[in-house]
């Protein structure tokens, strides 16, 4: 069983996101490990990009902080290696296609394999364009995590049937960011997903309270939280560690036994 599959085999999964290198490489390592220690089941590490078109203001600002502090793809690989040396938690990169394309897909995924990165999420790579990296990623044992949006409709079946790792169900229209209310009919989307694949499906975009997490994990296999965690880094800077631990622990508690 893959590390990603294991993350979903003992109840609902909590997936936490942080932008790599925010606010510094050292602190970023500490924060990622805090998430693991607090009970996160899977960790997404953002490789910062200058123009993250799918991100709202909170994660945009994290990208700027990380790049200003000198984050590069190579340094994020080193960060991921240090995290991997200390924990067996599944690690998934989130980045845009250009950093991967410029690094060279083969070189990029060879490094992922060598370090032990389990998957990759690319928000600007829809189903039609995944041929750009899918074979190379598969050759190196890295799952491409596909996204399904509230507007996907008849595309859901195709995306789900070819999905690997887990499916990322986008809860809302627009960009990432904390939302007070999620209006999309996620149950109907998940029903079509489940008719087409056995791999787990987690919901992200906008989730920030334990109540939201509990409700959504009532019907999804996991919840993904990004902006609400990144916001703690914006708020507390280098002192964010304990706050991240406390927040992730609370969120994980909320979805336990769902």
């Amino acid at each position, binding site marked *: 069983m893959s590390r990603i599959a294991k993350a979903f085999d003992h109840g609902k999964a909590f997936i936490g996101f942080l932008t790599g290198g925010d606010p510094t490489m050292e602190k970023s390592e500490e924060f990622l490990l805090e998430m693991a220690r607090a009970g996160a089941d899977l960790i997404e590490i953002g490789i910062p*990009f*200058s*123009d993250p*078109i*799918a991100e*709202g*203001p909170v994660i*945009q600002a994290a990208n700027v902080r990380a*790049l200003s502090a000198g984050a*590069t*793809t*190579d340094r994020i690989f080193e960060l991921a290696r240090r995290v991997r040396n200390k924990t067996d938690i599944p690690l998934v990169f989130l980045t845009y*296609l*250009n*950093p*991967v*394309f*410029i*690094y060279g897909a083969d070189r990029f995924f060879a490094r992922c394999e060598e370090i032990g990165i389990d998957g990759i999420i690319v*928000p*600007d*790579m*829809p*189903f*039609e*364009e995944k*041929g*750009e990296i899918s074979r190379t990623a598969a050759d190196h044992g890295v799952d491409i995590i*596909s*996204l*399904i*949006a*509230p*507007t*996907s*409709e008849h*595309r859901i079946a195709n*995306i789900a049937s070819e999905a690997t790792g887990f499916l990322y169900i*986008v809860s809302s*229209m*627009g*960009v990432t960011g904390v939302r007070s209310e999620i209006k999309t009919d996620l149950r109907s989307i998940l029903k079509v997903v489940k008719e087409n694949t056995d791999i787990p499906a987690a919901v992200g975009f906008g989730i920030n309270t334990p109540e939201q997490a509990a409700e959504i994990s009532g019907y999804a296999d996991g919840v993904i939280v990004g902006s609400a965690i990144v916001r703690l880094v914006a708020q507390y800077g280098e002192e964010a560690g304990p706050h991240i631990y406390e927040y992730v622990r609370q969120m994980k508690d909320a979805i336990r036994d769902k």
Partner: protein
Amino acid sequence: MAKGRYGVHGGQYIPETLMNEIIHLEEAYEFYKNDPSFQAELHQLLRDYAGRPSLLYYAEKMTKDLGGAKIYLKREDLNHTGSHKINNVLGQALLAKKMGKTRIIAETGAGQHGVATATAAALLGLECEIFMGKEDTDRQALNVYRMELLGAKVHPVTSGTMTLKDAVNETMREWTARVNDTLYVLGSVMGPHPFPMIVRDFQSVISREAREQILEAEGKLPDVVMACVGGGSNAMGIFYHFIPDEQVRLIGCEAAGHGIHTDKHAATIAKGKPGIFHGMKSYFCQDEYGQIAPVYSISAGLDYPGIGPEHAHLHDIGRAEYVPVTDEEAVEAFEYLARTEGIICAIESAHAVAHMKKIAPSMRQDQSIIVCLSGRGDKDVAAIARYRGVKIDE
């Protein structure tokens, strides 16, 4: 691999949230492209409202002064709203209306596309919101007010470098938040398929007219056709119907800012590398890790780190040449055209005039050049004065 490829370039690299809308747009466009009543309506708007066909003007005085090839100017600056942007915007806004959309959104650099979009929205009764880099709203304050007069809401974009690329980012973000009633009226031959094709088709009216006009005036094809290139819409427009005429040299003039040996330029073909950004594979100014580079040009309309995918392909196959032109050369050409022909052109277009000045004298007098004068220069007068150290009250 998806549709909309120009060689290896193009494609549809966008968030899943937009995919169905983009597919829907392509289907709608393919239908209306072949719909005689849509085409008749668009033709009427271009003629009666935008003022087409635009003139192909023989610049006799400049021709004599340069002493070489005959210079013709394709006067897109004389269109309603003062640039070629109206050609595309009337097409897309009409398409939006046919698709049942009630709201259009757009990015703008210099403000020409924003003004054109706001104009079409006013005419066709559509709600309109424009995203413009904060730096550009400062550089082009008059155009901001112009858009507001036309009933549009202008959002200054404060993310990133606060210029055109960031305005595109923010417009895409807005579109992912609200697709049902909204069409993104993209201003150049860039972005995900079908935009490069749609914008090129709507702009190709420029070369359809220019080809007929030059044949009538000269009895033969021109030797050179040239235009400035940011994203590349006026260049694609004036190139398109000349592409099969292999004896016609096509030249795109990129913004070299302070010079391509400095880090202050926007010369994508000269200095960029292949990449994937803003929905397309093409050439981009970027660093060794693929971070999109901050670019610079005196011209807000050319201040973009990428180039349309069809241009990237024309470059790859050697069908078109792309040359860098500095701020200083463009400003000199701006002043030269004003003095010589009594035409104040956009600083964007002045990049093409500048390169024309370099090549025309060494050409024969029986040869001819068409320069696309993409826009008029009223918007740039204050900036040129600042560049020359002249203090004026606006």
